[in-house]
């Protein structure tokens, strides 16, 4: 789950140098999309509504980047940071206005059933979530390395001006990148809708964790985010086991600090000169 939440965040950060605080609210919107599709006449299973949720969030994120964030994309990091922060409080409060603060959630027929392997019980939902996260990450990785657009995106992230000179529409590429980030948030939202309570403020909890996971994995490193997500989950669990539930955040953040100080390129990345 953390991995799914972090992949889009890490992509946008790495390619565009934008820390998207509104990523959490995108996840929230994705979760609501799945919720409405589930309770609507279609009764669409959240796992099946992932593509739709991604499409909706792609469109929203594309528009936001193209018309709002693009205005300050070259300004210092703080400008985009504050801008996305402002957007996140606007989106969360608009969600509350339209959908109220009621706590909603999705319970499917298979919620809570588990796969028993030896002495371990693995909930199906978690297993599927993991599989979807892996599939999305691999899909994104393939897209970035194999497709023309993917190569253009990577070229832009390396050198904006050179990319422009070679005929790449940078504004469009950025909007596309942000849109993909949004789509991944939409997928994460659809996944979250099965395991978490759906509220307008549910996104907050994911942002800080997406932050940590992205750093653990290395910025913009798509597969790294997946590894970072898994590592983070393990650290949290071990922190909770050995130091007590209350210390799990402290342990996770301490590890993060050490990583920043000693391996700023992430756990799986390599130092680049």
């Amino acid at each position, binding site marked *: 789950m953390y991995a799914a939440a972090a992949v889009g965040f890490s992509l946008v950060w790495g390619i565009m140098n934008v820390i998207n605080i509104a990523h959490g609210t995108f996840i929230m919107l994705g979760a609501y999309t799945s919720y409405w599709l589930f309770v609507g006449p279609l009764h669409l299973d959240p796992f099946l509504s992932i593509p739709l949720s991604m499409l909706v969030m792609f469109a929203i994120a594309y528009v936001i980047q193209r018309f709002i964030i693009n205005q300050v994309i070259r300004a210092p990091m703080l400008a985009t940071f504050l801008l996305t922060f402002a957007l996140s409080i606007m989106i969360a409060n608009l969600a509350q206005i339209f959908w109220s603060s009621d706590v909603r959630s999705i319970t499917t027929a298979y919620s809570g059933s588990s796969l028993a392997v030896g002495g371990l019980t693995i909930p199906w939902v978690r297993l599927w979530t993991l599989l979807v996260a892996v599939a999305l990450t691999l899909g994104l990785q393939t897209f970035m390395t194999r497709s023309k657009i993917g190569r253009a995106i990577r070229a832009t992230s390396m050198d904006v001006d050179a990319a422009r000179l070679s005929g790449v529409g940078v504004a469009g590429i950025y909007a596309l990148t942000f849109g993909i980030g949004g789509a991944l948030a939409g997928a994460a939202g659809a996944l979250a809708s099965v395991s978490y309570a759906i509220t307008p*403020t549910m996104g907050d909890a994911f942002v800080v964790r997406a932050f940590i996971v992205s750093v653990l994995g290395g910025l913009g490193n798509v597969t790294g985010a997946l590894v970072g997500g898994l590592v983070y989950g393990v650290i949290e669990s071990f922190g909770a086991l050995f130091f007590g*539930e209350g210390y799990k955040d402290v342990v996770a953040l301490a590890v993060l600090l050490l990583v920043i100080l000693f391996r700023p390129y992430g756990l799986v990345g390599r130092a680049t000169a």
Partner: protein
Amino acid sequence: MSFANDRHHRLFAFLSGITAAAVLAASGAAMAPRPAAADDVITFGAALSATGRDAREGALTKEGYDFWKDYINSQGGIKVGGKMYKVDIKYYDDASDPATSAKLVERLITQDNVKFILAPYGSAATFAASAIVEKYQVPMVDPNGAAEKIFNQGYHYTFAILSPAKKYLQGILELGQTLKPRPTTVAVLAANDQFSLEVADGIRDYAKKNGFNEVFYSTYPPDTQDVATLLTQVKAQNPDIILGSGHLQDSLLIMRAAKDQNVQSKIIGFSVGPSTPDFITSLGNDSNGVMGGAQWTITLNYTDPLFGSAARYTKMFEAKYNHVPDYHNAESTAACETFQFALAKAGDLDPAKVRDALAALDIDTFYGKIKFDSRGVNIYKPMAVEQIQKNAHVTVWPAEAANAKAEYPLQQWGKR
């Protein structure tokens, strides 16, 4: 860049400017038609969480307050010292921040000249507000700040109508003692905040004194997103009773994790969660058998001079808001009612006299007995225990108020 792009930008700036102006105007206009502060209106004040973390609970509280206001005004108002007054409530949004609560309560008192304060949602906010009302000697009735720490400060102007935090889950253990086979082992999970820790302390004390064996206790961060590890540890101890002291979202997380890992206990109960309508809609059949400490339940057979009975209150409330009132709604309405009786008894709008009337109050309401000890805590009203059976709430404890027998032990997961 290109000319087209530039024009585009200007259009965007212009449109957004207009939108912002329109929103400003609308937000101003929406609040304009308030009844003027005429002599025959008593205005109460409340800083509530309309946005932020506690927005859901804030909304339930506001429904409870508004229900009373509309009911009273439809009945012609309230009588104080032989004169009829309409009532109004002035609200502000504290954005779920205690410091803002304190600021807004001070604003209500000194800027809006409100003489009677209805407390904000939550213990921390109520704490911050209680220092302000004390300073201005304006009475505040508190429907949902249950932490007793608030009342150990020696304040004289804050009155809590709800049973204190320590009692929240005690009822489940009392009930447990009457069941066969008697459950003996208890696991306690508590959110690390003031209210939840007091609830947990209450249970642990009671458990120790009454022959229960505490096999697991842990606190967890209030904004936790993952309790899987916690439930693994609980499962290893295989307790008869699992008690969670936290908030609605934590309760939902614990329930899901318990099912995921097939943690099977004989009783599972929460301080906050099961009583809210959201709990059943969220969990469906899995919510069956879950117990909750409740300040009030719809089946309690208390009578009331204003609404007649708990049943009649429920009926009227449901007609207005399309859902059964939960205890947040009821205690909020009861807080207003408490003020109403204190005002009638004082026969005067003077805050000091109303304060004295509150201190001496001893009334029966649809919500239960309301009477305060010297600290301003209502220790006279018992807590009830609710259980969810067939996707609906029933009261299973105390025995004299119960309308159903407790289902015990819990069914296996999947059969609930």
